[in-house]
């Protein structure tokens, strides 16, 4: 379990904290979505949850980040990396830039951890297959498109198989097919017991995979609850977050005074697409 207990974080030199008294619990197998407008604190929350702030970023933190009940502060970064993985939005900074092929890039993390050779090969192969990038395994990462690079970056993170995953807009550069691949891979990981914290603008993706949601406003928790409830909350648009398609369609159906059987059919169709309604 990954837990943030009354966390307040301020970047070095910043006039005010970017996170205020944020508490959050991420249980095993849970997928928690983070939404909010720009500068609401989503990326900062990811850095704090992954143990990178203030350790690498600097700044000051009050409150506690707990991993299975123990504070993460005494853990060395590589020990933390084995248990909490983080992926950022910009693929250009995710890739190591020292590998010649996609295969080596995905294997980079497991190799760093000194895992047995067979395990590295198994994990790398599984991650490549999970993201549909086995066919580009021999290509040079630097020559891929932004979307492909992002898939490689996420695959490289998942190859480490951390118990907890923190993803900061992992699909920012992905097309719908790539986004769906990420959604399916994350759903599989959650089903296997991994806990996932994902900051994302694409609420359709969140509606598909999240069990719970947190909406941030100016570094504070503005909304929190079950994913379906938060994503349908009227206050969401006031926080600069778009409703998912499922919610918009349901509202349109209600506004058009569709009769109950038709609404139910529509709801059932959207449910098969993985969208809560």
């Amino acid at each position, binding site marked *: 379990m990954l837990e943030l207990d009354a966390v307040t974080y301020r970047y070095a030199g910043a006039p005010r904290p970017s996170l205020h008294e944020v508490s959050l619990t991420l249980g095993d197998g849970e997928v928690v979505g983070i939404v909010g407008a720009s500068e609401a604190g989503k990326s900062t929350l990811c850095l704090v949850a992954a143990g990178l702030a203030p350790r*690498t970023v600097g700044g000051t933190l009050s409150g506690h980040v707990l991993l299975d009940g123990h504070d993460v502060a005494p853990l060395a970064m590589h020990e933390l990396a084995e248990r909490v993985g983080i992926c950022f939005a*910009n693929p250009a*900074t995710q890739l190591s830039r*020292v590998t010649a092929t996609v295969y080596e890039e995905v294997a980079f993390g497991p190799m760093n951890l000194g895992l047995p050779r067979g395990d590295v090969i198994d994990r790398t192969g599984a991650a490549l297959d999970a993201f549909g990038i086995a066919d580009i395994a021999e290509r040079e990462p630097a020559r891929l498109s932004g979307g492909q690079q992002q898939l490689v970056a996420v695959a490289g993170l998942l190859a480490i198989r951390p118990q907890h995953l923190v993803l900061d807009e992992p699909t920012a550069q992905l097309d719908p097919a790539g986004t769906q691949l990420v959604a399916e891979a994350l759903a599989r990981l959650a089903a296997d017991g991994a806990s996932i914290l994902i900051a994302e603008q694409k609420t359709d993706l969140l509606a598909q995979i999240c069990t719970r949601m947190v909406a941030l406003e100016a570094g504070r928790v503005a909304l929190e609850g079950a994913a379906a409830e938060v994503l349908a909350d009227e206050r969401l648009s006031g926080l600069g977050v778009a409703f998912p398609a499922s919610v918009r369609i349901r509202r349109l159906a209600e506004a058009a005074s569709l009769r109950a059987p038709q609404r139910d059919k529509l709801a059932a169709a959207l449910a098969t697409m993985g969208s809560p309604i």
Partner: protein
Amino acid sequence: MAALAVTLAAIMLSGVVAPLLLIGVGVLLPAAVAGVVRELSRIALLLSLPLAISVVLVNVFFFPGGEAVLLRVGPIVATAEGLRFALEILLRLAAISGAVVLFYLTTRPGDLVIDLEARGVSPRLAFVVNASVQTVPTMVDRAADIAAAQRARGLDSEGSPWARVRGLLPLVAPVVLGSIAEVEERTMALEARGFTRPGRRTLLWRPADSRRQAVARWLLVAALPLLIGLRTAGWLAWLG
């Protein structure tokens, strides 16, 4: 290692025959085996041309104490001694640039790093070596992107040499500052992938290193102390 040996030998050897032999045995022969003679010649020539021109001009026309006059243009005199000295420098320059380009053409940075690691070099040091080599194409790509963006906003960076120089200035800050800004996130990404873990990494493979290749490499390296000895003893004077 062989490239380093050739470079050091080029610095030590003087005269014309010895550097010629070095170029033949230490650069052209391995390049022919690797099938890169044409590409090597082109890149080495481009690399060393500016320096070569200045070496020839300075030494042919301004060699101190030159007496055998070849050409006189007003107060400037080209001498045979200057020409010979310039030729010696050019041959050394050709050997050094040839060795460096041969290394560049025949060694993938990733292979070098894996091999260094397999030989016990710290993964971090190996990473620094590789990242330094990889930085150049990355920055070139970034500069091209920024130049395109600047042109799209009306900056004239093509045409006359002066326009090109003026176009360079707005590129420098975003290229350099952008690279620096990425360092923090890149560091975090590396840490999140366990790069700072102490101890050996798992290596999946090692670059191929045939017996013949290893023997050739060690022969070149072994020739280096031999050359030092011969040079010190003055037994290479006949090659001058």
